[in-house]
Structure formats: C-alpha cells, structure tokens
C-alpha cells in the first residue's frame, strides 16, 4: 500500500542543497562540447554568405581542397536530398527541406551568415584559410527585413514554392506569409459595443538573440561500423539525433548523441546547425571533426527570436471590466518558416478573462536568420502591447493598475482565446503577493521616476521523459535521465526522487545519459524538465518502492504485500517493525537480485505559469537612459523544489527581459546585413546595469504533479518590457510603442513630445 505523501510537508523539497555537478563546474573540469578532444580530431570552419539574399550560381572548392592540411570540403551538393517531407520533432514539426537548407544553403542564400560550405582541416587556422579560398558566385537579389514590407505582394519572394497555410488551406499564389492563424471567442462587435473606453495602439519590436555565452559547438565521429557519434551543445539529445538522422538520411539508430554540459540555450539550441555538418565532414575525412561557431556566426546565423509588428485594441467598461480584445500580429519567421506566431496569438490575452476576442497572426519569411524559440517564445512581444493597454485603460477610468488586473485576472475556468479553459492557476495569488509586497507598499519619490507593473504567462509543457533508478549496496541510488542540465536540473530531479524515497539529495547520483543509454526524453525547453522529468523521477521512485514492498513481504517479513506499509518518510513497516529505505535496500541486495526501477511519462497538460513584475525606474532626460532602481519578480512555481534555482530562473529571465526592453536589438546595414554581430555592439545587460532582482515565490499547486510543481523557467522574461514601459510612462508621461526602449529612441521621443508641448 502506498500512501500519498503529497501532504505539503516535505523533507527535501524546499531545501537548497549544493548541485551534484557543482564541483566540476567551479574547477573547470566540466566538459562542454568545445572541450571534447578525440584522437586525430580535425577542426571545422564554415563559409557563410556575405549577402542577405541571392542565388548561388556556382561554388569552386578546388583551391580549398588543395590547401595542405585540409581533409574535407563539403557543400550542399554533398548532402543527401531530403525531399519535401514533414518531420515531427516532438515539440514541433518541420519541413526537412527547410531544416536541411538552413544547415547548408542549397540554391539560394536567404540571410547574411547562411552557411554555404564547410571545411575540415588539421587546425582552425588552416580550416579558416582554406574556407576563404572557396569561390562562390552569387546573383544578388533584392532583400527585405521588415515584416510588414515582407508581407506585400511585390516583396522580394524568399521561396517561390511557399504558399500561405491557413489551417490546412493553401494560398493560390506563393507568398512570404508562411502561416495565417485566426482565433475568435464571443462576438467582437457586441463586445466593443458594450465598452465605455477603448484603447488601440500599434507596436513594433526588434529581433533579439538568446545570447547564451557558449557558442554552438559539435563534434562528430562517423565510425567504421557505420554509426555516427555526436557530442554537442543541445537542449535535446533525442531531437538532435532525429534531426541529424533525417538530414543525413541515415537510420535514427545509427546516430548516438551525447549531450555535453551546455552553456545556455534559452530555446536557441534545439534546431541543429552543426551536427549534420560535423557528421558529413567526418564521413568524408574519416576523422573526428569539431566545429565551434564564432560569436559573429552565432549572431548572424542562429537564434534570433521574432521581431514583430502588433496592432492591439482592448475595450472595457467604466468600472474596469475588460470586455473585448482584438489583435493583429505579424512575426518574423526568418529565412524559413518559423514557429512563434501560434503561441503569440494564444498569449496576447492569456492573463485576462476577456469575453470577446479576435486574434489574427501571421508568420512571415524575410531575410533574417531562421527565428528560434527564446524563453516563452512569442509571449514577450504581445505582453509588451497588452500590458500597456491595460494600464492605459486603468489610467483613463481612474483605476489602480493593480486593481484592474485583479478584477480581470485569468483563473480556473477562464476560457482561453483558443478555446480550452484554465485548470487552477496562480495569477490571482501573484497579484495578492504583489499587493502585500514591501516593494508595492514603498513610496517612490523624485522627478522622472516611475513605477510600472505587468503580468505574464507561459504555458509550460509536459512532453515525454524517462528515468531509470538503480540501487547501490549501501542504499544510495543512481538516477539516469535524459534532460540536458542547463541550470541545475540534475539536482531538482534528484531532490524529487530523494523526497519519494526518504533519502537525501546527496544519496542520489544523477546522471544525464546519451541517446543509447536512457529512454526517449524531449528537449530541455518549455519549462518542462523539473515538472515532467521530475514526474519521471518520482514515478520511478514509486516503481522502486512497489518492488521493494513485494520483496520485503516475500524475503524479509514473510507476509502479504498488503501487510507492508510505506510510511510518508519513505520507511517500510510491518507489525511495528520499521526499516528505512537504505536499510531495506541493503538487505534486499544481499538476499536477491539487484533493484532497478524505471519510469516513462508523457504528461500532456500545460503547467500554466503566471507571474507579475514591478519595476521602479528613473529616466535621464539628457540621454534617454533608463536606470532600473528596484525590481521585484513574483511568480507561481506551484511548488519550489529548490528555491534558489527558482529564484535564479526568475532573476535570469527577468534580466533577459530587461535587456530586451532597454537595449538589445539587431541593427541592419542598408543592404540588410547585420551590423552588430558582437557582444560589444549587441548590448546585453552587464552586472553594472542592474540592481538586485528581488523575488517572491508563490506556491499555488499544479494539480497535474504529485508535489504540485509548475514549470518556472520561461514566464519571467515576459513581463519586463511591459513593466518597464509602464514605469517609463509613469516617470515621463510618454508611451513607448517600440522595443528596445533604448536611450536614442526614448530621447528622441521625449524631445519630440516636449517640442509638441
């Protein structure tokens, strides 16, 4: 018999043990992909397009191939034809033709930095020198990098075979618009007719990059037995395995991916870039090959999350009830179809109970790198719009911005714009926590200072995870799982297993396995690991206990399994005799077969993470610079397994949002090539730009997890641009309609408004 120990009284959850991989990571021993060294390993370099859009007329690799020290040179001609096939990658589907084309350009280059050829040589300098001897003849084509321009009928067309998909219906003419989505709820005309106040604005946001400090890196070794072994910086080893196998057209079982320690991802290390290339270079050269991207490669050829244009309209009654909302959203897809518009549409009104709504969304190809997920992909842009309009309504009707949010907050039973209703969620609790916080109660005095708040939402997904638990002689256990550990998840998973078993976090040795050694596990993304792989660890622990009850009944107490009780502390009792997990495990080990347990889970519901942020700023009218004086991030974690890691996610996501809000953007030259592909010119927040980020963790249990865990990683990036925009408004009286709200932008706006006044 198993008693549910989800009683809120925990021994391990809520404590803050040192991470299992900690010593390796503070001594330089942890092996990241760029640190992998194999005997005879070559280094690779990628030749990239210098232009934003063009036809590849010819590629001459003869001089590169003749360079001493060069072992392989490949172009798309060396890659298999993958055909026009949709591959389901677990957390999204992709047309292989586009995936392969992004890895190595076929007949066209679609953005500056698009990979055109790859070289493997004895060292990186020889490889680079040889790559620069490759002669590529381009026919340059007109290019486009602004989403509304790319939607025009006469815009330069990126793909002449791409037709707009409207839920299965295809447009007659080819278009840069990959997808049109449309959602309705209630009756929008009736809704706006009931409103006393309606606000509408247009917003635009720049392309931003995930900015992980580790550049993409992969090592490939095409072994003599025909198996391809890959070591790589990926958020998902199984997804990388599948993409690599599909692009190289080899059986999935012939590829084994070892996920190395990874230096950040934030959504940008899910799509493959290098894995198929190191594989093919290794096949051609017969040697292992490593490629590490340069920082310029990272900015020019990976990542950015969509820039956007948004027109949003919200109406309310004079007593503050939001009645109707309308949104028209156009997001960058980049060179190939993207995937962020769906969640953008579903998140634009996700924080509020609005009866009538219409949302239209467009995913649009243009001459930028293929866009990728970035922490709550698609949600930050729309929150920037909606959360400002909600403030504007509050201002017009004379209501407090917190009160209007409390009045309209999404809660259990609120219908999402795409139809389903929320299960129990924690937005109301987060708003309450804000109301009670020291920050909210404090006064903010002084000229050009303002306070702003904003709410944010991200789904948090489940997907597939596996875990295997093996038991050692002494009753310590090993936890084998498949989730790339980007921020301490080995420990948050080990803690959940320790909680079930009644042992300590240190009694668990967690290990992230390669794709040959652990059951299929989806990517570390979607805020899913502590929730879903945690559920796998929990379930494996339960499996182990069930086995131990049977064995204890048979081998120890000579009774029926029903007569063995598993107590809340993980000990086993029979007739007043009690054995701890470790005692029983050691005893069973001596008597019989070793103990091994496993779990495979596929939770499907989103975990629904809501957060509320409050920011105090000061604006310098001479420069337009915004100084963040104080910042508090409040979020519902369901149950904070390791509170320091939850705080870390809240703080890190918040600061990425602050960077997006105040500085980060891609600049383009007139010829649509990126002008700022370095950390000097792509200005991410430094330590000196920030205050401490205070956090308040709310725990409104998720009914779909035994400990109530919700995903927390993504939501914190969503509110900052809106919270800061609202703070800037309250400091200066000026409404910000574009991101970033960088000093030149804000300065110009303040100048023009004071001139008008």
């Amino acid at each position: 018999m198993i008693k549910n120990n989800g009683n809120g009284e925990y021994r391990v959850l809520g404590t803050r043990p040192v991470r299992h991989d900690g010593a390796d990571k503070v001594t330089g021993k942890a092996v990241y992909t760029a640190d992998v060294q194999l005997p005879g390993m070559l280094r690779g370099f990628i030749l990239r397009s210098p232009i934003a859009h063009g036809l590849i007329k010819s590629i001459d690799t003869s001089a590169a191939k003749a360079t001493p020290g060069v072992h392989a040179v490949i172009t798309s001609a060396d890659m298999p034809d993958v055909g026009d096939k949709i591959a389901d990658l677990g957390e999204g589907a992709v047309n292989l033709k586009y995936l392969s084309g992004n890895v190595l350009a076929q007949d066209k280059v679609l953005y500056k930095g698009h990979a055109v050829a790859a070289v493997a040589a004895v060292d990186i300098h020889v490889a680079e020198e040889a790559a620069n001897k490759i002669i590529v003849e381009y026919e340059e084509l007109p290019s486009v990098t602004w989403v509304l321009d790319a939607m025009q009928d006469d815009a330069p067309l990126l793909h002449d075979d791409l037709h707009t998909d409207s839920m299965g219906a295809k447009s007659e003419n080819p278009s840069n618009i990959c997808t049109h989505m449309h959602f309705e709820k209630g009756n929008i005309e009736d809704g706006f007719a009931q409103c006393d106040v309606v606000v509408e604005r247009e917003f635009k946001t720049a392309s931003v990059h995930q900015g992980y400090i580790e550049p993409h890196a992969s090592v490939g070794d095409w072994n003599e037995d025909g198996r391809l072994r890959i070591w790589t910086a990926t958020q998902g080893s199984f997804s990388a395995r599948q993409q690599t196998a599909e692009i190289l057209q080899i059986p999935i079982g012939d590829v084994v991916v070892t996920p190395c320690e990874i230096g950040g991802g934030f959504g940008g290390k899910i799509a493959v870039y290098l894995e198929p290339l190191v594989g093919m270079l290794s096949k051609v050269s017969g040697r292992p090959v490593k490629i590490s991207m340069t920082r310029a490669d990272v900015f020019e050829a990976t990542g950015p999350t969509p820039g956007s244009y948004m027109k949003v309209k919200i109406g309310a009654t004079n007593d503050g009830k939001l009645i109707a909302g309308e949104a028209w959203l156009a997001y960058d897809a980049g060179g190939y179809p993207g995937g962020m518009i769906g969640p953008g549409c579903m998140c634009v009104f996700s924080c509020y109970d609005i009866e009538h709504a219409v949302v239209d969304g467009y995913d649009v190809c243009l001459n930028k790198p293929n866009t990728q997920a970035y922490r709550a992909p698609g949600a930050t842009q729309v929150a920037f719009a909606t959360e400002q309009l909600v403030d504007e309504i509050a201002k017009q009707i004379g209501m407090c911005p917190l009160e209007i949010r409390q009045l309209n907050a999404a809660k259990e039973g609120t219908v999402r714009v795409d139809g389903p209703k929320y299960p129990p969620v924690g937005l109301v609790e987060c708003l309450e926590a804000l109301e009670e916080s020291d920050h909210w109660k404090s006064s903010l005095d002084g000229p050009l200072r303002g306070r702003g708040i904003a709410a944010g939402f991200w789904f948090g997904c489940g997907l597939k995870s596996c875990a295997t638990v093996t038991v050692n002689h002494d009753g310590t256990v090993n936890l084998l799982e498949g989730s790339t550990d980007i921020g301490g998840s080995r420990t948050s998973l080990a803690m959940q297993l320790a909680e079930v078993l009644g042992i300590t976090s240190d009694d668990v040795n967690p290990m992230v396995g390669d794709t040959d050694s652990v059951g299929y596990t989806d990517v570390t993304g979607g805020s899913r690991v502590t929730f879903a792989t945690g559920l796998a660890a929990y379930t494996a622990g339960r499996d182990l206990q069930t086995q131990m009850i049977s064995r204890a009944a048979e081998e120890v107490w000579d009774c029926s399994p029903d007569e063995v009780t598993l107590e809340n502390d993980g000990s086993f009792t029979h007739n007043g005799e009690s054995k701890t997990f470790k005692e029983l495990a050691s005893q069973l080990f001596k008597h019989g077969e070793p103990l091994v347990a496993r779990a495979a889970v596929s939770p499907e519901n989103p975990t629904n993470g809501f957060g509320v942020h409050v920011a105090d700023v000061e604006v310098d009218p001479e420069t337009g610079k915004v100084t963040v004086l104080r910042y508090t991030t409040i979020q519902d974690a369901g149950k904070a397994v390791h509170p320091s890691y939850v705080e870390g996610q809240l703080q890190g996501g918040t600061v990425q949002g602050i960077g997006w809000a105040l500085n980060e953007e891609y600049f383009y030259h007139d010829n649509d090539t990126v002008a700022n592909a370095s950390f000097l010119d792509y200005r991410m927040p430094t330590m000196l730009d920030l205050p401490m980020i205070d956090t308040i963790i709310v725990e409104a249990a998720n009914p779909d997890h035994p400990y109530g865990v919700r995903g927390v990683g993504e939501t914190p990036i969503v509110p900052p641009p809106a919270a800061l925009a609202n703070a800037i408004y309250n400091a200066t009286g000026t409404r910000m309609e574009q991101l970033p709200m960088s000093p030149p932008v804000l300065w110009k706006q303040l100048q023009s408004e004071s001139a008008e006044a």
Partner: protein
Amino acid sequence: MVTVFIPAQLKELTGGITSVEVEASNIRQVVERLEQLFPGIQQRLCDGDDLRSGLQVSIDSVMTSRGLIAKVQPGNEIHFVPAFGGG
C-alpha cells in the same frame, strides 16, 4: 454525444456554426462525423492518417498527444488547438 468546437478558421466550412454535437468514441470518429456534416473539414484537420502537424486536441480542457486515437466520452468538450513547445 460530445460537443466539438469548430476552430474559427474553419467556420467558412460550417456556414458560421461554431460548435456541434456528434456521437463518437474517439477523435477519429469525431473528425469523420464532422466530415459528414461539413465536407472538406477532414483535410483541414488531418494530414493523411494523422492529425495535421502543429495541431493538438483538448478534451475537456485537458491536452492529449494521442491525436486521432484519443478516446472521448459523452459530455466531453473537444477543441482543436495549436501545439506549443517552448524555449
């Protein structure tokens, strides 16, 4: 009977009807019933023998990845919604 909510983008096939009740024990049957009522809707929801990529089903506001084989029970509310992942 289960209640099926028609995605707004497919209302052009239903003459503006936003929901219908059909007799079905799984999503495949739901789609077949819809096709009988609104010819052409099946190919908008499905690609061959699978749910169209990028779509998922919500049954009483609980997501399922089982697609067409997901079971439904009388009284269930069915939505077809976009799939989402995350970063």
